[in-house]
């Protein structure tokens, strides 16, 4: 994180290049509907954008701050139901999405205030309990239709592209905020918490407040994704949006892609979007086997996930040409997974 005079100019150059690359990618995705006309492809891309957003959002708390949560379905579901209720009340969908993100952020405070007193695995277990309790309550809540689910009635023709661009913009916002966080003092504070919460507190970072903020930001993004999904599906139900499965998916993507990095979760989301659709269509039941095995491999072999594996591969190829020592990859991931937590 130290920036010397010399690297500053190089970084500027590289940043410019990266910016250009990003713009091309974004433009390419924006043009996509004109290149492929298949509604199915557009639908898959739309879902992939949503997965990428949740993955990036989870990573803000789970990766940057190192607080692994099994409970993001709570925010996804709250977002979905808020949008559904708001739209059926006649609100503009985009206003509904905003309300969703605010509600989800508020819920994140309710969840976070007590549970952030817990550390590491205890926090993780508490989030399982909360997420399952919320699901049970939602399946029994009658004004949202209980387990039957809830229907959004929208009295205008369905425009797939509108949904597509909403998701694209949302994913861009998520990635942009992730980049921003990784470069600001806030991000450094989260890093410090991940590395050692007590030491961070000693350095003047308030871990409790930082975790709550990261949680709220992540929840706001996840809630908005829930809303966008709900509008597309037009029918939501607690077993789906509040399901344990949803929490698991949201957690697996960034871990598989590369936890605590900016691009790992994006990669994880893309891989997940494709695997989920293509593999499930043919082998509906073994997809979790693949994820489970990947998770075990990642923990034991390559904590940096797919991104970490690429880095390692690159270094190996690179080291042969230029004999230069470099830091081992996946350092952030090691900090999250291996550091013992004091309860």
């Amino acid at each position: 994180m130290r920036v010397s005079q010399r690297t500053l100019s190089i970084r500027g150059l590289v940043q410019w290049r990266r910016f250009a690359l990003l713009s091309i990618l974004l433009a390419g995705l924006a043009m996509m509907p004109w290149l492929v006309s298949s509604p199915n492809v557009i639908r898959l891309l739309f879902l992939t954008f949503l997965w990428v957003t949740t993955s990036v959002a989870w990573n803000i708390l789970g990766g940057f701050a190192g607080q692994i949560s099994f409970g993001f379905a709570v925010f996804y579901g709250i977002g979905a139901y808020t949008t559904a209720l708001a739209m059926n009340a006649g609100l503009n969908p985009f206003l509904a999405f905003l309300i969703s993100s605010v509600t989800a952020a508020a819920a994140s405070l309710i969840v976070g205030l007590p549970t952030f007193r817990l550390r590491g695995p205890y926090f993780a277990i508490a989030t399982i309990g909360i997420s399952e309790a919320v699901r049970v309550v939602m399946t029994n809540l009658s004004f949202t239709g209980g387990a039957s689910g809830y229907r959004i009635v929208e009295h205008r023709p369905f425009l797939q592209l509108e949904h597509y661009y909403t998701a694209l913009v949302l994913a861009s916002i998520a990635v942009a905020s992730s980049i921003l966080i990784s470069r600001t003092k806030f991000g450094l504070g989260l890093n410090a918490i991940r590395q050692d919460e007590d030491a961070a507190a000693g350095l003047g970072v308030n871990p409790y407040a930082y975790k709550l903020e990261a949680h709220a930001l992540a929840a706001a993004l996840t809630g908005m994704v829930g809303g966008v999904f709900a509008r597309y599906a037009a029918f939501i139900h607690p077993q789906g949006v509040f399901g344990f499965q949803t929490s698991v998916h949201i957690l697996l993507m960034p871990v598989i892609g590369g936890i605590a990095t900016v691009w790992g979760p994006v990669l994880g989301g893309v891989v997940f979007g494709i695997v989920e659709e293509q593999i499930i269509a043919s082998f509906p039941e073994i997809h979790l086997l693949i994820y489970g095995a990947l998770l075990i491999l990642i923990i034991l072999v390559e904590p940096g996930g797919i991104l970490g594996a690429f880095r390692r591969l690159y270094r190996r190829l690179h080291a042969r040409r230029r004999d230069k020592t470099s830091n081992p990859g996946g350092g952030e991931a090691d900090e999250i997974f291996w550091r013992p937590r004091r309860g």
Partner: protein
Amino acid sequence: MTLIEIVNLLVSALLLAGIYAVMSVGMTVIYGVMKIVNLAHAGFMMMGAYLALELFERLHIDPILAALIVFPVMFAIGRAIHWLLVRWLPTSDQPTLASLLLMFGLWLVLQNLGYLIWGNSDRSIFTPHTLSILRFGGITISSVRLVVFGAAVACMVALQLILNHTWFGRSVRALIQNRYAGQIVGVDDKKTASITFGLGIGFAGLAGALLASLYSFNPDFGRPFLIRAFVIIVLGGLESVSGVAIGAFVLAFVETFGILFVPAGYQLAISYGLLVMVLIFLPGGMASLTAKVRRLA
């Protein structure tokens, strides 16, 4: 509410507590010695249930007896998994997220192996005894439940005896109390960890086999039980067999009597909510509560 009904409820809470205790004890042992939160516990319970089903369907072995066969099988599987995966985790005197996620990955794998091998429709074991009931005056007890309760209590007692009276048990208790001191006085912590892990998985399988004669199950079997097991071991102070028994009683009574005050659909929310409350307010378990009360008095 009549007296008979209350007695009925008390009896069913007691029987439930026995089942809950045997279901949680495997998790406690592993946590105590290795500080690993075994998220795959539900997966091993599911395997135990299906093993009992296979033994019953292929060899016509009564599911209660089958549980006794399942135990050593699962013990061996547990040691194999320890050798294959778990021993690579660094030892630590605090739980790590690596161990949590490793066990979670293992759970997903087990669950899907279950789908591949047994399909995902609900299965159940039906024996001539399944539906038989005993009546004592107005009190009705399912005889299978009673037998399962007996088996559960017997297993808990056996485990307690092993822990108190064998060299292995002494090593286990030493490691639970203080890992480093234990190593200094010559406890082979690697071997003890391996046997402990096997024992924990064995108990998970045993519990699964016992539960199989009470409930229907599918490869997703056990998530609600996993959460209950968490509640129980946290209530019991995380690392003692007697703590587990106390935790199981508390949860079983809260669930059985709680249902009188909330709609049936919310029954599961009781244990989920309790988990969060206990983690936050009673991280040291019931023991810390009594200590707190004593301090106040």
